[in-house]
């Protein structure tokens, strides 16, 4: 399928690893991305709280730039995705806002008709349009042996965008990582806040949130946290050292984008996937994958006996059933 593509500013700089790896995996999966010509900033989280109308107009300009013939606009950054999605939605719901925004767009000889563009997240198109089965066909090096934390953050899961997924406890990324051959960790904080812009505003609050995420992942013996948002990656990766200093801990938890590990599974080179750009080195992941597979453990003849007194655990709900 052919998508209009809105990279957003992070993917050009601090999240270049995300941008490069996303383009590479869409290439492997024969999905075409057409970058918007002369796109502009999404306004991040701040602009809406200052003055809504220019904030909407700024975003609507990007929607207006979608080339005719294309219906789906992909934004890999969760903040860009949510802002674009929200704008599209509000323009359709609020006629007055729509006419004000279009009056602004007219100054630049642009216009946007609500309902013509569907805003999509990078993860959404890969799992919904391409699908797990098709992705599985392209795997050259399964991520066997890796224990990964699927971390969604808070923007991606806001209700409305991904109608059928459970906003409290999503599992689309879990299933993708399992498709790639990795073991996923049941992560209770998968939709928790990464701290957003708190490192600049109130560092102590940010460190608390970052600590909780990193320590919980570490307590579950994870090899890496897998994100789908440049903000989450930045906070957990760049400020991990400060959080360690603040609490006197020594965690060293690599934080990667899901497209980076997808690329590895597709047999693409770690350099091309942006490995090495992270603050907390992810070399351990590469070493683990490069190491010869450990000899298969001898199947214990008897299952480890549960204590006779222990009560049975309830059956788990099947993956994908949680709605």
């Amino acid at each position, binding site marked *: 399928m052919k998508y209009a593509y809105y990279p957003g500013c992070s993917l050009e700089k601090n999240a270049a690893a995300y941008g490069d790896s996303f383009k590479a995996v869409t290439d492997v999966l024969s999905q075409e991305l057409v970058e918007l010509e002369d796109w502009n900033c999404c306004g991040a989280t701040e602009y809406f709280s200052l003055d809504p109308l220019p904030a909407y107009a700024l975003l609507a300009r990007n929607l207006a730039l979608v080339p005719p013939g294309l219906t789906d606009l992909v934004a890999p950054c969760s903040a860009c995705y949510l802002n674009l999605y929200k704008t599209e939605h509000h323009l359709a719901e609020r006629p007055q806002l729509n006419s004000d925004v279009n009056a602004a767009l007219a100054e630049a000889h642009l216009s946007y008709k609500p309902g013509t563009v569907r805003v999509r997240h990078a993860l959404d198109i890969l799992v919904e349009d391409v699908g797990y089965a098709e992705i599985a066909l392209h795997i050259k090096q399964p991520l066997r042996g890796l224990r990964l934390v699927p971390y969604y953050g808070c923007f991606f899961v806001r209700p409305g965008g991904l109608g059928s997924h*459970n906003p*409290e*406890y999503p599992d689309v990324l879990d299933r993708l990582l399992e498709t790639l051959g990795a073991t996923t960790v*049941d992560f*209770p*904080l998968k939709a928790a806040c990464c701290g957003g812009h708190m490192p600049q505003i109130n560092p102590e609050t940010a460190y*608390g949130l970052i*600590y*909780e995420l990193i*320590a*919980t992942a570490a307590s579950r013996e994870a090899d890496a946290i897998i994100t789908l948002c440049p903000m989450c990656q930045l906070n957990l990766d760049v400020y991990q050292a400060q959080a360690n200093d603040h*609490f006197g801990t020594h965690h060293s938890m690599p934080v990667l984008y899901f497209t980076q590990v997808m690329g590895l599974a597709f047999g693409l080179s770690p350099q091309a996937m942006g490995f090495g750009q992270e603050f907390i080195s992810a070399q351990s992941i590469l070493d683990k994958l490069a190491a010869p597979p450990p000899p298969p453990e001898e199947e214990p003849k008897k299952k480890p006996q549960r*204590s*006779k*007194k*222990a*009560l*049975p*655990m*309830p*059956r*788990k*709900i099947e993956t994908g059933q*949680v709605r």
Partner: protein
Amino acid sequence: MKTGVYICHCGSNIAGTVDCAEVARWAGELENVAVSRDYKFMCSSTGQELIEKDIQELGVDRVVVASCSPHMHEPTFRGACERAGVNPYMFEMANIREHCSWVHTDKDEATKKAKALVAAAVGRVARHQPLTEKRAPVNKNTLVVGGGVAGIQAALEIANAGYHVYLVEREPSLGGHMAQLDKTFPTLDCSACILTPRIFDAGNHPNITLLSYSEVEKVSGYIGNFRATIRKKARYVNEELCTGCGVCQEKCPKQVVDEVFEAGLGYRKAIYRPFPQAVPKYPVIDRVDCTFFQKGTCKACQKFCPTGAIDFNQQDTLLQVEIGNIILATGYDLFDARRIPQYGYSRFPNVFTSLEFERMTNAAGPTEGKVVLRDGVTTPKTVGIVHCVGSRDLNYNEYCSKVCCMYSLKFAHMVHEKAHAEVYNFYIDMRTPGKGYEEFYHRLMDEGNHFVRGRVASIAEATRYGEPEGKLIVQVEDTLIGEQRRIPVDMVILSAGLEPRHDAQAIARRFGISCSREGWFIEKHPKLDPVATMTDGVFIAGCAQGPRDIPETVAQGAAAAARVLSIIDKGEVLVEAATAIVAEMNCTGCQQCISTCPYTAIEYLADKQKAHVIEALCKGCGTCTAACPSKSISLRHFDDGQLLAEMFGAMEAMFELA
């Protein structure tokens, strides 16, 4: 032909939107109308006397009342006609309340519409024919579906009155959910101790045929004369020979988790009796779990059975019973707490559901009544009880499950008493209406439990800096102090709500009754007819109708029984007079009507090669009249002439008023 027309004000219900006097004046000028009046409440005795007086003094022979829905008062006005000597079928009702005043605001337009509806009824009633309702005898047997406390109560009431009951239970034993419970609120008396004598009585009553491990597959017929097909599932145990000694259960090598009676917290064998006091005492073999049925070898139970009662060749049997009335008391399912993943049930070992906890505190349960964590040995020091799990939540069920506040209080008491633990109740509102219920709440507060008002956001084994490791952290907004709190506990009990049985819709269809949007069975009238349904002869009791506690459930079981007994005592029922009739001259014998009739009320007369309607079975639904290609079936009281007259009446009026 003299038609009397009566326009009801229904207080201001109709008169607020419709000019009733004007409708009456206008209707007085319609063809065949001898008298036309309006009155404040036609259903009152004075209103009915108006009709009776006009019949006797003016010779009115057809009556139209424009008021509410025929569901409400058609029988009332038909009765008035009959008392004054006019056949009740010479009456027609125009619904100017639900169909007019309640749904419109413009008085002029609503008045016009009311006129048109009255004109339609006047047109129709001119074509009415007198009909006579036939009487049919009532079969004195009753079918009770569901062997929980509601069904047991209903069955015992009827059986004690001297009439026969078929009591059908899906599980191997009577008892239902109440048999699983430990204590009952607010008196804290032992649930099993008060229930088991009733179970025993129901199982041994000479007037009750107990069909456990059985399900009703098919029902046909009508009030007083139903016929049901019941599948008695194979137990693989010969009930004639089995003494209930329990050796088979002891010797069976296959142990599985008991998902039903022990709510997943304990084990049972492949051949099992759910609990020691089970009635009947005979065990059943679960084919799916049994080694012999799955692998072909084992037969340990057979080897050890002292009376040779194990019979692997037993087959399901189908039983036909004839009954006059049916009581459905099929109960509820517990809300599946796994549907709220952020509460961690099935992910964190020490999150339990309410039914699991009932089994845990039960002295006959898997832990012999000890309150312990999932490891089976550790006593919790702090316990959180989360109210409204799956209830009062637009994401799951909007309704309040009614019993959870009280059973949560009971749990808090049990935890306090048995584990001496600190207990946090996380509630939205405490709802404790009932005899002695609020007092129980006060008692629990005095016992020193914490009550935190707010819906729990999440339960997780994920700690912030400085929080104790290895605990479950309950994140909640305490709305009384206006702060977010993170409370570490050892154990969480989820007070899950009550949901309709997963197959409630299918059961409702089988018995010809209807369900609410959620799946609860719908009563005939929510206030004045709470145990009857729209299908005569089918009654409902207990949680199948909506969440309720034990006293209310028992009261309903008894109420349903009383309704059935009054029908049995009367001895006969009136049979629908508006039935289909075949004009044999035109019938080609194609039998299409026979295949479309939902009540199997049409038979084929092979000698004449004609269809024939069995009047006692016909419900007057009209499906056959629509299906008949030669138009040789008509429906009494709904024939083409009557329906066309009704439509012409309405259309002429609308044309005139436009």
